[in-house]
């Protein structure tokens, strides 16, 4: 059984998978992991080749668009130690096409699909739970700390939605930001973040929302457990309606 190593980057991972699929007779008998440079590490290191990584993703998209989307979601989750599963998944996706997502009795497929689903779920959740605050200069800012690295697809969603607004998304943990202004979307990192001043009416609008949130619930049906299972507490930090609870 051959073991391969790669440099730990997303491009490195995909170029390694591409290389193995071409060179190995049976990719499902091969393992792939991140190189940690420890003393007893064994395996052949595959060098990173960005165009090759891109080409692999493109070919998969042509061949099995659903499977490529699963791969994309999986990468958002930034999950380590699953490289071998991903290799087997991609290999099977080329063989079976989009039907591969139904092959849940296969452990590698199940692992990849589950992680991808988790990222997809968080992306969908954040489309609802993200909260913008209006700043003094009229722009809007939303801070978040999602488990998965979803800022790209999330920003795309809001670029279709709040098109006439000038806004920022900021991923506090990863220090990455997205900016939408005059029809163009940009991404970048922020080394030092200082909270800008809020617009004058911001607190008033927030108070209105808090008031609405309180009265819309039916007291006779109070059900905090259901609320928490739909809206896990880890997301409450930036929710206007959950401040001061």
């Amino acid at each position: 059984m051959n073991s391969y190593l790669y440099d730990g980057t997303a491009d490195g991972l995909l170029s390694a998978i591409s290389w193995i699929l071409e060179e190995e007779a049976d990719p499902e008998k091969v393992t792939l992991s991140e190189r940690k440079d420890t003393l007893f590490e064994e395996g052949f290191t595959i060098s990173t080749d960005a165009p090759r990584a891109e080409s692999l993703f493109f070919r998969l998209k042509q061949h099995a668009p659903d499977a490529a989307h699963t791969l994309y979601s999986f990468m958002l989750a930034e999950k380590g130690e699953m490289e071998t599963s991903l290799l087997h998944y991609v290999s099977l996706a080329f063989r079976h096409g989009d039907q591969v997502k139904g092959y849940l009795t296969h452990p590698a497929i199940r692992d990849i699909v589950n992680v991808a689903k988790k990222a997809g779920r968080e992306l969908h959740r954040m489309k609802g739970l993200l909260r913008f605050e209006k700043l003094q200069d009229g722009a809007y800012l939303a801070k978040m700390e999602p488990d998965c690295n979803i800022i790209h697809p999330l920003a795309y969603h809001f670029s279709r939605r709040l098109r006439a607004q000038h806004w920022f998304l900021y991923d506090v943990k990863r220090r990455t930001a997205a900016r939408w202004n005059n029809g163009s979307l940009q991404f970048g990192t922020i080394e030092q973040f200082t909270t800008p001043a809020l617009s004058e009416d911001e607190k008033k609008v927030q108070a209105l929302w808090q008031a609405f949130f309180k009265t819309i619930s039916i007291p006779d049906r109070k059900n905090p457990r259901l609320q928490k299972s739909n809206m896990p507490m880890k997301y409450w930090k930036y929710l206007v309606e959950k401040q001061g609870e």
Partner: protein
Amino acid sequence: MDTKAKLQILSGAARYDASCASSGSRREGPSSGTGNTSTSGICHSWADDGRCISLLKILLSNDCIYDCAYCVNRSTNPVERASFTAREVIDLTLEFYRRNYIEGLFLSSAVMQSPDHTMERMVRVAETLRTEEQFGGYIHMKIIPGCSSELVRKAGLYADRISVNIELPSQASLQRLAPQKHKHAILEPMALIGREIATSLVERKVCRHAPRFAPAGQSTQMIIGASPENDFQILRLSQGLYKKMNLKRVYYSAYVPVTADNRLPALAAPPLRREHRLYQADWLLRFYGFSAEEILSDEAPHLDESFDPKTAWALRHPEFFPVEVNRADYATLLRVPGIGVVSAKRIVAARRFSPITPEGLKKIGVVIKRAKYFIICSGRSSEKPDQSPTVIRQRLLLGAGGETAVSAHPEQLVLPGLFA
């Protein structure tokens, strides 16, 4: 009165409306405006009662000329009255939408002066939002029974979803509890909406730019437990609405006692379990290929409190089981208690690759707690074969796979004077 006080009164008055869906419509946002809609709908928060919040759900006014016994806004109820101006609703909607608090607006109203007067004011809000403010988000509008068909048509052009609430499932109950409402004033606009939606769909096939009419369809709501109708009557009504009027959803709202009235039942708590069972049965009608007559009958017109309706059906039909997971078609799999749409699809997809073993079934995420009594898997069964329904019933009730059979607090309805 300031906006906040009005918001508190008019959202508090709107909360008994169960519908909060924002799905079923897909609109690209205008480039110079605010908002679009997504097919799957998006929930933006969950209130303390666990229900999702996706729309700013408010009444335009709670100042009602009607005196419906079950309603918190009835004219003889001494509550504080308030009315929004169109501008206030529009500003609230836009300010909330820009901050991503909501997916859009749900606008209903008490009947001020007359149905036409009220509906006209509601339509004006939607019209201003769409044309002047270029709002592309979701709008759900209630139709006030008794308003002119011209206003219904206009509402459908601006809103994504429109709905007329049935409230009480029979003419007799309407007459007793909502004497100013009439069956025909409710059903006529529903039929009109159904026709307009169908026409618009045909026109849009011919011309892509033909106007859309309520693209997310129509829905309705019934109050459960305020009147003596049994579950069979309610389910048959829902079935008719889905089949004949093409409704997207029927909502069931457990009656919450909001006024003391001797025409109404005295409830210890809202009949939440009954509401839950009705939703389960409703799902069986819409997604599982069941008919109301399979679920209930004149002899047994009430849904079982301790079993979900599919399990109850399965226990009455032992001849249908066990089902072999590897051979049964999709429709048959859907009839197995504990196997839902997701599980059935997974089974069908997975067995293309290899036969499914009992372990494999667990691995693909099928919960077999209840299903195990009704299936065999590659010829094997994790339960003794040929157990009688009585035995299965008992084992399910003992917690070996049933939903909690014992409810935490008494939910039995007490209906003084209702059947007299």
